[in-house]
């Protein structure tokens, strides 16, 4: 009888262990097995932090993030939605755009799982694996990669439905934008340039970048499509490309369109003459890299590129989808903040967003 009880207990435990185990395949094809829903997650890729918060709907399970993830939260709308996010440690990597993990700081956080970039070198991965941490590797550059981040995050937090809804939203908006831009002739697609860096050097997004994907989708032509992911170029190359629209990254916090307008060397660019230089918006995250709000980026950019042809109600879209993603209301002031009206107000056509 005792033996039977013991056996029964064993089976129940084993059974429940099997039932709760979660197996995830990461974007380098590695199998990750978790005992159950994750409790403590660290994200090293910069856009992954706010995406994880968005999927989970809370900051409780995010115990560490990249320093540049936090600078997108501090003083912006995510800080209001999740004030606790600012207390999450962000000292887990080297400074600036470094993804080299600070393994001992990471071990202190006792994470069940660490997100890390899989498309860079393996030196930023091995220290984590050697320290016995469970690592999920993710990639950047294509929209399908980003969807996989959502699927993985949904599966490990028990929020698969939310993640799927966020993916469905991406599908819907992509179809909408594609339909709106499909008939635009090649010659009517503005030559577009995205600056990944402007203040310290001139680094632009090439054909393998995620930026290239949404410039195409929104009805533009990336002038730097012949180059790889992010590449340094000279001023003269930019003049030779003569972009009609310039997009400025959200990482260089102080960078504004005025910096481009004030640059004597760029005075002949169509984008400068027509005042079509725009700071990328910053909502729950910077809108330039792939993130949980990417569909809003696509809608916004399609209007920037084709103000005469395309007209979405951005304020309504933002408000509706912030309710969906974060369960939070936004005001008109919030919309203006997200769309960077502070920097973009003087740019051509920015009044189409009705946020001025």
């Amino acid at each position, binding site marked *: 009888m005792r033996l039977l009880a013991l056996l029964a207990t064993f089976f129940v435990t084993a059974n429940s262990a099997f039932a709760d185990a979660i197996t995830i395949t990461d974007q380098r094809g590695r199998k990750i097995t978790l005992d159950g829903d994750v409790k403590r997650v660290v994200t090293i890729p910069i856009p992954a932090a706010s995406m994880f918060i968005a999927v989970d709907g809370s900051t409780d399970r995010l115990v560490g993030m990249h320093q540049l993830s936090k600078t997108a939260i501090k003083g912006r709308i995510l800080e209001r939605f999740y004030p606790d996010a600012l207390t999450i440690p962000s000292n887990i990597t080297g400074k600036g755009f470094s993804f080299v993990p600070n393994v001992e700081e990471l071990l202190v956080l006792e994470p069940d799982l660490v997100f890390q970039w899989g498309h860079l070198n393996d030196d930023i991965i091995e220290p984590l694996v050697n320290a016995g941490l469970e690592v999920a590797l993710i990639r950047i550059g294509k929209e399908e990669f980003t969807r996989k981040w959502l699927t993985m995050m949904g599966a490990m937090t028990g929020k698969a439905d939310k993640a799927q809804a966020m993916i469905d939203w991406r599908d819907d908006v992509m179809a909408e934008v594609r339909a709106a831009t499909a008939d635009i002739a090649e010659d009517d697609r503005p030559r577009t340039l995205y600056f990944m860096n402007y203040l310290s050097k001139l680094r632009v997004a090439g054909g393998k970048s995620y930026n290239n994907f949404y410039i195409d989708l929104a009805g533009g032509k990336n002038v730097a499509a012949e180059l790889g992911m992010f590449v*340094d170029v000279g001023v003269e190359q930019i003049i030779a490309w003569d972009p009609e629209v310039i997009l400025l990254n959200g990482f260089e916090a102080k960078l504004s369109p005025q910096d481009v307008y004030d640059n004597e060397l760029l005075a002949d660019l169509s984008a400068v003459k027509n005042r079509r230089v725009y700071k990328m918006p910053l909502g729950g995250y910077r809108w330039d890299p792939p993130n949980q709000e990417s569909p809003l980026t696509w809608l916004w950019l399609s209007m920037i590129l084709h103000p005469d042809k395309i007209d979405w109600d951005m304020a309504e879209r933002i408000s509706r989808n912030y309710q969906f993603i974060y369960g939070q209301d936004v005001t008109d002031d919030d919309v203006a903040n997200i769309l960077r009206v502070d920097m973009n107000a003087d740019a051509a056509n920015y009044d189409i967003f009705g946020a001025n």
Partner: protein
Amino acid sequence: MSIANKTTAPARLWRFGLWGILVVLLGLSILVSLGIGRFGVPIDHVFAILLGNVFPIELTWKPVEERVVELIRMPRILIAALAGAGLAVAGSALQGVFRNPLVGPQIIGVSSGAAFGGAFAILVSESQVLLIGAAFGFGMLAMLVVYTISRQQGRASILMLVLAGIVTSAFFSALVSITKFVADPDDKLPAIVFWLMGSFASSSYEKVLLIGIPVMLGSLVVYLMRFQINVLSLGDEEAQSLGLKVERTRWIVLVAVALISAAVVSAAGIVGWVGLVIPHFARMLTGPDHKALIPAAALIGAIYLIHVDNVARASIAAEIPVGIITALLGAPVFAYLLRRAANKGWSSE
């Protein structure tokens, strides 16, 4: 070997011919380079734009072409020329006073010292003048350290000099890393990284002046010291017996070299191999007399770096760091020169 200012008639003729050729080559290099770039400007437009500065010519070119030629290419070409000339003069002077063909501004630590000085200046202030000043100060300091380490019983052997240079460069490189580590990643760090990487990409006429003045000044001092360098290159004992104040002379030359190197580093970062290789080329043409060697090295250095930068800025859409090309070209050429010099004999050691 003649150390006095006496040259035979055929030799003088050869020199005048050489100057003519080098000066014409430099002029042509600048003109041709003004027509090279990612943005297509027809060569006749380049000429028209240049002449348009002096004569009232009918506008046949687009304003954007004028901007590209005059605001982007011209300052960049001038800075490349100044940097090439400065590095070659500095290298010639160092090789003379140290009686050592392996010496260049990079090898004796002045470049990495200047790099640290500049990075530190960016960290603590925004002043361009302080940047050059600190680059100069720390360039000098690094050179002083190398000099002190390598001197034993009043003389510096080649091996000790090179080793001391390696040690000192490593130390200042570490200081640069610390500076980068403590810098604010949103603000100061990108500025430091950009400055250190060294490219002519951000050239402007202000920068031309900013590096032109110290480079010219330093080069002038080196040229005025040409006879003393000649005497020094015979060896310290010989120089002393000829009545030269060895230490003082060496220091004046070193200060001038540090000034040149600091200016070049602050404009273009560490551009290696130019100061090492070009003086050898010049010496093949002029012989070891610094009176002819120094101006020849300056002209060849200027021509060389102009063309290297043409490749860096115009060959592909992406900007190639200029230091990569100078190293790719410089290292094998230098190895070849070393093999030749081994047989032909450098005057000392």
